[in-house]
């Protein structure tokens, strides 16, 4: 198994929210990708967004601005 890295992981209640997040990030040129929800976080819809750690508050703000509802946000090793 590869080395784990610190990532900012965001989970969602629905798949639609996760895909709305992906679309908003792509449009802004933010890097990141969809991953299955890590077990430390509640399972939610099964999809999570993984991106560079740090700037958690800004990212939450960015999602809110784009009308994307999310469940949890956490910086964990994945």
């Amino acid at each position, binding site marked *: *198994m*590869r080395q784990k890295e610190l990532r900012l992981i965001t989970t969602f209640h629905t798949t639609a929210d996760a895909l709305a997040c992906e679309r908003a990030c792509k449009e802004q040129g933010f890097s990141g990708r969809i991953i*299955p929800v*890590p*077990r430390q976080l509640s399972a939610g819809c099964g999809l999570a967004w993984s991106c560079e750690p740090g700037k958690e508050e800004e990212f939450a703000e960015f999602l809110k601005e784009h009308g994307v509802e999310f469940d949890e946000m956490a910086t964990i090793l994945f």
Partner: protein
Amino acid sequence: MGEMRRVYLDNAATTMQKPPCVVEAVTAALTSFGNSGRDTGGHALDASRVIYDARCLISDLFNLGNPKQVVFTCNSTEALNMAIRGLFHRGDHVISSVMEHNAVLRPLYDIEEDQGVSHTFIGVDEKGRLLVSEIEKNIRPETKALIFTHASNVTGNANDLHAIGKIAKKHGLLFIVDASQTAGVLPIDMQDMNIDIVAFTGHKGLYGPQGTGGMAIREGIDIHPLKSGGTGVLSYLKHQPEEMPTHLECGTMNAHGLAGLHASLNWLVKEVGIDQVHAHEIALAKRFYEGLKDMEAIRFYGDYDTDQRAAIVSLNIADYDSSEVSDQLESDYGISTRPGAHCAPLIHEAMGTVNQGMVRFAFSWFNTEEDVDYAVKAVRELATDI
């Protein structure tokens, strides 16, 4: 660097690759079908004929003996909801199992709350096999039905429908089977196995399009309709007509999807044969299991000593999160699998994998030995380097 190989091993979720005849049938239907059952124009009749022929093929597949008792829905979840919500009354009791998918569990929890219908879930042994001997002990005077999946979508273990059907017959109980993982894979004979209702989904082992499914219902069983609406016939009746299959079908049918299911059923039964398909899939699953079983870091779930099972191999690597393993298989090797809970919470509780989940590999007719060997190599690499 060349393009990464892509191997799809999430066939228990849906068979991604469909036979070319299915693609052709749907494409042709999209430019030729009118609204089935609504008029007698040639285009509408074309749709009606294909749907009727699909009923005949399903009736034959499960040895139901009456195509009018085949109802089409958009998937097995809808069929199971119709059956579970439309058959029982306050005070009734049903017996089911911890192997069930949420398509059975959630309607059962709902009718417990809304209709006062109680349930008992039969457990499994350490390999995830149903404790069949527990069924009879849990039958009460108010027990009305046995509701069991044919095979677990998590462990792949299949239940002995003959044995359960005998118990149902002896005690005069309805026997409802969730064949989501086994329709088109393992033989199901409703008459021989005393089954009253088989719920199936079109997009897994039947190799049809998503949005198709249904149930085969033994004659004389009255399911109260979940929905009512246009049927194209008996338009002046205030309620849904009593005649089957109209009793349980309303609104415009998914004729385009059913054209695909019709083609896949013909392909499956008349061209390749379901025994052939199962033999191929199970050989691949075995090859995968055999290729990994010596690895100490890998833990398998399910009973791999029999071929009477779905072509599913679920495992974990040491105590790694199944999501991490599945993600690495996808991103580093292009292998699609399914981690987590697989919509079947009770079997994960029984197997002790609520926290870790499992990584599920599921094989189809369109997978090859090369796919398996590639996946074995990938998992071996991940399980060595820990």
